[in-house]
């Protein structure tokens, strides 16, 4: 149940399991994923200017395998100061 009315409990079970299984399979919890994101931003920023607020990191499923997918927007040269 949600405040918006009855939600199918099987859907919640599936969504919760999707997240739990990623963590079980990869040993990566949301906090570690956040820390990894910060490290990644720091490292990449040393080479190229990026838009830190736009960085998205996700674990994507491919059958039983998972892939770390990072989307890192670069700051355009025109918008750079100077």
């Amino acid at each position: 149940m949600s405040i918006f009315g009855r939600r199918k409990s099987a859907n919640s079970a599936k969504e919760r399991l999707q997240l739990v299984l990623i963590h079980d399979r990869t040993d990566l919890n949301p906090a570690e994923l956040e820390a990894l994101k910060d490290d990644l931003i720091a490292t990449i920023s040393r080479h190229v200017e990026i838009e830190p607020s736009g960085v998205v990191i996700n674990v994507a499923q491919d059958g039983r395998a998972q892939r770390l997918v990072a989307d890192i927007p670069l700051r355009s040269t025109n918008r750079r100061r100077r």
Partner: protein
Amino acid sequence: MTAKVVTVTSGKGGVGKTTSVANIAVALAARGQKVTCIDGDIGLRNLDVVMGLENRIVYDLVDVVEGRCRLRQAMIRDKRLPELYLIPAAQTRDKTAVSPSDMVRLCDELRQEVDWVLIDSPAGIERGFKNSIAAADKVLVMTNPEISAVRDADRVVGLLDAEEKGPASLVINRLNPIMVKRGDMLSVEDVLDLLAIDLIGIVPEDENVLVASNKGQPLALDPKSRAGHAFDNIARRLLGEQVPFMDLDTSGLWQRLLGRK
């Protein structure tokens, strides 16, 4: 003869491993196969009572491993079928009485004698599980459409891959089509999406399972029981037949299998 060794395991307890080993064994034996079941749950034996053979036990698995009897002497014959045997677990010992290499040796000896060796694994991922999968040519992972059973099944599937015992095949037991329909139970499709392994059986929730185990008469021979029919279908798939899945799940799997979705 070179038997195929099939282990049924699950991670979580109580999902129906013992029930399915008993029923798949009966179904295979009824189809003319020579079958031996091994109860791998040392210290908590149950396959004997589910099969109705508890009064005939003289020797057990540990007696064979420790050389107190010959393999043949520990194989209790189920007289209701031509060639069905059970090697019971020891009740007063613990799992360390048997090692994975003992199981490999024992199964290698059995391979010469029968067509199928079915091993009933204990729950968990400890010694008993490792013993039960050591000799397996094929592992069936059993789950219920329920959050913790699916999670534990996933863990076991991962371990089996790591031990090079994969790819495992999935059995979904205790599916309640009415609950699936109203959205209160994970559907077959949901579970397959999550676990991403091959499906070998869907067994509905069925009161006859309890009635059969009360009587010690596996229900795979009862054509009126839906669960019995489902177990027989698993036996046929193990034999290599292409058997369509029963129309239990109302949330789209059937349509997908028929190519309508």
